[in-house]
C-alpha cells in the first residue's frame, strides 16, 4: 500500500488537521516508510495461527454497577474556553 497526496489529504480532513504542501509531502514520506517497515511482517507465514487479541492472556476486568457522586460540573468545565450556566458553549453546530 502506498500513501499518495489524495490519501494524505483525506486523512488530514478526517482528523481535522490542516496541512500545507510541504507538510503533506513530509507526511507522505513518513507514513510510507512506516508502512514499508510494517510490510515486513507479511514475510512471516501465519497460516493456521489464531490471531492474538492480547499478549497478557488476561481477561477483561469488570467493575460492579456502583455509581459515585461526581458533582463534577465545576471541575469538568475548568478548561472550557467558553461556558454558560453549567454547559460547554461551542460554535454553533448546524445539522
Amino acid at each position: 500500500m502506498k500513501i499518495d497526496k489524495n490519501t494524505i489529504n483525506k486523512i488530514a480532513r478526517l482528523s481535522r488537521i490542516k496541512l500545507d504542501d510541504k507538510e503533506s509531502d513530509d507526511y507522505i514520506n513518513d507514513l510510507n516508510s512506516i508502512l514499508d517497515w510494517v510490510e515486513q511482517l507479511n514475510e512471516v507465514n501465519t497460516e493456521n495461527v489464531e490471531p492474538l487479541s492480547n499478549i497478557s492472556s488476561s481477561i477483561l476486568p469488570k467493575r460492579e454497577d456502583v455509581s459515585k457522586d461526581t458533582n463534577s460540573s465545576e471541575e469538568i468545565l475548568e478548561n472550557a474556553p467558553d461556558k454558560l450556566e453549567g454547559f460547554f458553549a461551542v460554535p454553533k453546530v448546524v445539522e
Partner: protein
Amino acid sequence: MNNLIKGEKHDWEMVIGLEIHAQIKSNSKLFSSSSTKFGSSPNSQVSLVDAAMPGMLPVINKYCVEQAVKTGVGLNAKINNYSVFDRKNYFYADLPQGYQISQYKYPIVGEGKVTIDFKDGTSKDIRIVRLHLEQDAGKSLHDQNPSKTYVDLNRSGVALMEIVSEPDIRTPDEAGMYISKIRSILMYLDTCDGNMQEGSLRADVNISVRKPGDEYGTRCEIKNLNSIKFIKQAINYEAKRQIEILESGSSIEQNTMLFNTSTGKTRPMRNKEEAHDYRYFPDPDLLPLQISEEEIGKIKSSIPELPDELKNKFIETYKLSNYDASALTAEKQTSDYFNETINSDSELKIHAKIVVNWITSELFSLLNKNNLDLNNSPVSPENLGQLIKLISTNEISGKIAKDVIEEMFSSGKTARQIVDEKGLQQVTDQGEIAKVIDEVIAENPKMVEQYLAGKDKLLGFFVGQAMKLTKGKANPKMLNDILKQKLNKKN
C-alpha cells in the same frame, strides 16, 4: 391483508428496518462510575473518563453486560461467547473522545426474532440481526443561542443497546407494533425503562420502496425518532417522497434524513459533503469480552415471564380472549396489577373477564382523566378486587359500582366502607321491589295504557322511574322481571 400504497402509476411496497437504541437501566455508566440519573444539572455527572481526559481508561460495567445478555435471551437471540469493542470515529461537539466505543464485527448478541400480533388474530415474526453494546453521546442544545451550541455531557458514556432488525417490516403500523413489542420485552426484563419521552428508547428508521416482488430499492435513514407517532408519520412522509421521485423518473439518493416534528416532513442532513468514514478498529484500551456458557445459563435462569408467555398463561388459566390477554400483558404494570387483583380473593378467579373490564375500561379512564398511571393509582388492586367481589355477589349493581369506584378514586376509601356508609347495597327483597313498582304503575296510568296498547319501549320508562325511587339500588334483573310480570297481569 393489503400492505401496498397506491402511486400514480402502480402500487408500491414499503421495506422498513429499525435500529432501536435502548438505554440500559443501570446505576452507573458503561465504562465509568458516574451516575446515569436523568434530569440532573448539566455536566454534574461527568467523570474524567466521560470527559475523555488524557490517560483515562475505560473499565466495563459487569451489570450492563448482564443486562445485554438478558435482553438477548428475551429477543430469542444467540448470545456470543466472544465479542469485541471497536472505536467508531467521528467528530462532534458532544463526543469528547472523538470516537464512540461500540461493537462492530463481533457483537455481544447475534440473530433473534420477535413476534408481533395483529388485531385479526394473525401474527408475524420480525427477525433481529444483532444487538450490540455502545456508549451514548452527550446532549447538544442548538436552539438556545443563535451562534452557540450548548453541550451537556451527563449522558456521555451511558450504556446503550442497539437492536438492529432485518428489513422485515412492511407498514408504518407494523413498525409501531414492533417497537411497542421491543419496549414491552425490555420493560418486563427491566433492562430499559422504556421512557421514550426522556430518550431512553429511540429509533433510526431505514426505509425504501419497491414494486412488489422487485429487489430492494435504495434506502434512506431517518435519524433519532423518539415516539411511535413520529415514527409512523416519518415513514408515511418519506415513502410518499420516495415514490414521487421514482414516478417522476428520477432515482433515490441514499441519504441520512432528519424528521421535523412540527412540519411532519423529512429533510436530508446538511453536512453530507463528506460521506461518513468511521474507520472502525478494535479499541486497544479494552480486551475482548468473553462470557461463559455458565454465566449465560445463570442469567437465563433469572429471566422473568415475558409478555408472550404470560399472555398464553392468561388465556389458558382464565379463559380470556387473545385480545383481552394482549391488552393485559402489553405493559408489565398492567399484568402485575391484574395478577394482584385476581389473587386478592380466591373467588375472583372465575370472574377474570369482569376484572379485565374494570381495569381496562373504568380504572384506565379514571387514571387517564387524572393524568396518573397504574403505578400511582389511588385504587389498590386489593380494593378493586373487593369492589368486583361486591358486584359478583350481587351486593351492588354494576351501575352503582361505577359511582363507587369514582369515590374510591377521589377519597381513597375502600369499596366496603363507601357501600356501608351510603347504604348502597342492592335491594334484592322481592316484596320491596314489588312495592316500588306498584307505586310507579299507580302514578302513571296513561303510560300503562300506552304500554299495553303496544308501545313496548315504555318499559324503559318504568324501569327508570322505579330505579329513581330506589336510588338506583334495585337489582336490575329482578326489577325487570317483576315489572313485566305486573304489567302483563294488567292485560
